[in-house]
């Protein structure tokens, strides 16, 4: 027999828990692969090993991880401060719109003007998109989960309006905007690869976030408000102001994900700019246990199985949605497994 005791698990166990979650997830999704007559081991080889086997796909993992690093960071920032921002998807679109708007006007500007302007505009647009929810929470006491969620479809409709109306690129048969100015395009990090400056930006954001969480009074206040707003207020923390920072900066970081996809990958606005990076950001933040380093690793891992997913579906004839199923399963399994953070398993002899 064993017994669960409520104490904090040792650190090495905590660090191992996401790995346990991954193993359980792959065991669960193996049933799905059997169902479609695919060999699970072969599928997992394509998911986990194949993308790392050559330069092109290895760099593609980093490209795929870039927006996830940013949305994961956005969600981590908000959740740490106790603001349940489920609207990173909408904020990403807002950032993408702002980046495109600025990028289209940068014809005669050098990159050192164009790129910072786009970044600032995207950050501001993401902040703007979360402003209504956070004000409704602070002033009217309305749950931010609902309001941030409701604004996600609104952002999508606005983008699709822009693409079919004012920003419609007349020479393209698809709904897309004209290309942004060449000087507004993020520089590539390596020759012959798609990896771009957005990856560096994302890593910088995570490093800065780690510093703020660990070393500054703001980080301390955010964690206090996130844990127990009433106690934080009692301790003299201005809860409303801290919550406002948690929300706005989170929206801004999500906006950067939109900037990075526009300036680094597409160079124009399309309505499929994000296949749900905002929601995947919640998976990344959960899997990374709201720890900046953990979020970095988690985003790279999801980038890996995102890259592998396309190979799997091509090589084994499995619907492309398999990758999404695995990610959703991983989110749920992680939630369950992370409970063990607060427990120790102690084996005891059954009392006879």
């Amino acid at each position, binding site marked *: 027999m064993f017994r669960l005791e409520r104490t904090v698990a040792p650190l090495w166990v905590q660090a191992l828990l996401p790995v346990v979650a991954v193993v359980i997830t792959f065991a669960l999704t193996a049933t799905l692969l059997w169902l479609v007559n695919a060999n699970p081991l072969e599928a997992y080889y394509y998911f986990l090993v194949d993308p790392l086997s050559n330069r092109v796909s290895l760099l593609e993992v980093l490209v795929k991880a870039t927006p996830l690093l940013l949305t994961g960071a956005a969600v981590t920032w908000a959740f740490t401060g106790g603001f349940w921002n489920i609207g990173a998807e909408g904020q990403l679109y807002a950032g993408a719109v702002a980046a495109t708007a600025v990028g289209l006007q940068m014809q005669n500007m050098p990159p050192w003007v164009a790129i910072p302007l786009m970044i600032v505009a995207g950050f501001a647009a993401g902040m703007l998109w979360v402003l209504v929810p956070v004000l409704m929470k602070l002033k009217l006491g309305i749950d931010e989960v609902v309001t941030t*969620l*409701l*604004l996600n479809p609104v952002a999508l*409709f606005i983008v699709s*309006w822009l693409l079919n109306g004012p920003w419609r690129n007349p020479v393209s048969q698809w709904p897309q905007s004209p290309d942004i100015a060449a000087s507004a395009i993020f520089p590539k990090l390596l020759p012959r690869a798609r990896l771009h400056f957005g990856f560096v930006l994302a890593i910088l954001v995570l490093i800065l976030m780690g510093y703020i969480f660990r070393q500054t009074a703001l980080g301390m206040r955010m964690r206090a408000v996130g844990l127990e707003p009433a106690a934080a207020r009692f301790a003299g923390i201005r809860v409303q102001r801290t919550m406002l920072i948690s929300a706005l900066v989170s929206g801004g970081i999500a906006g950067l994900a939109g900037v990075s996809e526009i300036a680094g990958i597409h160079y124009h606005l399309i309505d499929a700019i994000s296949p749900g990076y905002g929601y995947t950001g919640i998976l990344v933040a959960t899997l990374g246990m709201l720890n900046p380093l953990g979020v970095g690793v988690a985003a790279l891992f999801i980038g890996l199985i995102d890259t592998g997913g396309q190979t799997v579906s091509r090589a084994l004839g499995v619907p492309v949605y398999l990758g999404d*199923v695995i990610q959703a399963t991983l*989110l749920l399994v992680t939630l369950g497994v992370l409970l063990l953070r607060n427990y120790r398993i102690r084996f005891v002899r059954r009392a006879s």
Partner: protein
Amino acid sequence: MTAALLITFLVGLLAATLRVATPLILGTIGEIYTERTGVLNLGIEGIMFLGAFVGFAVAKQFELAGVGAHLWLGVLGAALAGMVAAALMGFFAVTLGVNQHVAGLGITLLCTSLSLFAFRLVFGESAVLPSVSPFAQVDLFANLPVIAPIFSQYLLTYATFLVLVPLASWVLYRTKFGLEMRAVGENPEAADAAGISVPRTRYGALMIGGALMGVGGAFLSLAQLGAFSPGIVAGRGWVCIALVIFAKWDPVRGMLGALLFGGVFALQLRLQTQGFQLPYELFLALPYVVTLIALAIAGRNAAYPGAYLKPYRRE
């Protein structure tokens, strides 16, 4: 616009409002039951999507097999699928007691991706979207002058307004199960002390709610569309979450909220066809914005159930 035209316009608007509101009422009442026991089910968006898919897939298979009641079997399948998904939500929210926001989103992502995965498996990747001939509308008062179109509705719409809404209110306020739900949602410790099983009540409410959400999704695929497409739910689940707060967790007010959203939605559709020179994408966003505004007006400092979002453990 002449008076006659105006009346035709309003009659058509009202008829469409009732249709658009139907799946929202199903989802909203499902979520009201769930939240009344203290559990937030953000899986609603995905469960409606799953209901739309399962409803369609089941109906299509039985149609191919030549079974006459295939559409109703689809609705039944959607209800069962919704119950299973809600039970899974219960496992995380009630049994394990993890964060309900994240668990609910996990359920939504899982239901959505599994539906799309299964859709590809069952129907392949054809250029033409597979379809079934949808539910027919019932003309209850075809002889009435002018207002007859209002009563030309799906049976599911009639059932939702005339049976579900009163029944849901009656169960919630007048039966033992309703009392147990409210007790568990307000004060699980006291309910437990009074001999009410907190997990059983929460699972019960979640699964009833899941069935309703599933049927709401099936209404979209089997009545409104006659097909299944990736954009079929398009945030309606999130709207339901907002309507629950707007409704202050009351089924009748939930119906009114759904009618408001349905009215705005139907109005924008009609204004589009009437040739108003506003881009239709902005019209599509309008119902969500109106819901947000309604929330700001009616949802101020809403009195959430006492045990909202709180897992219950016996100490």
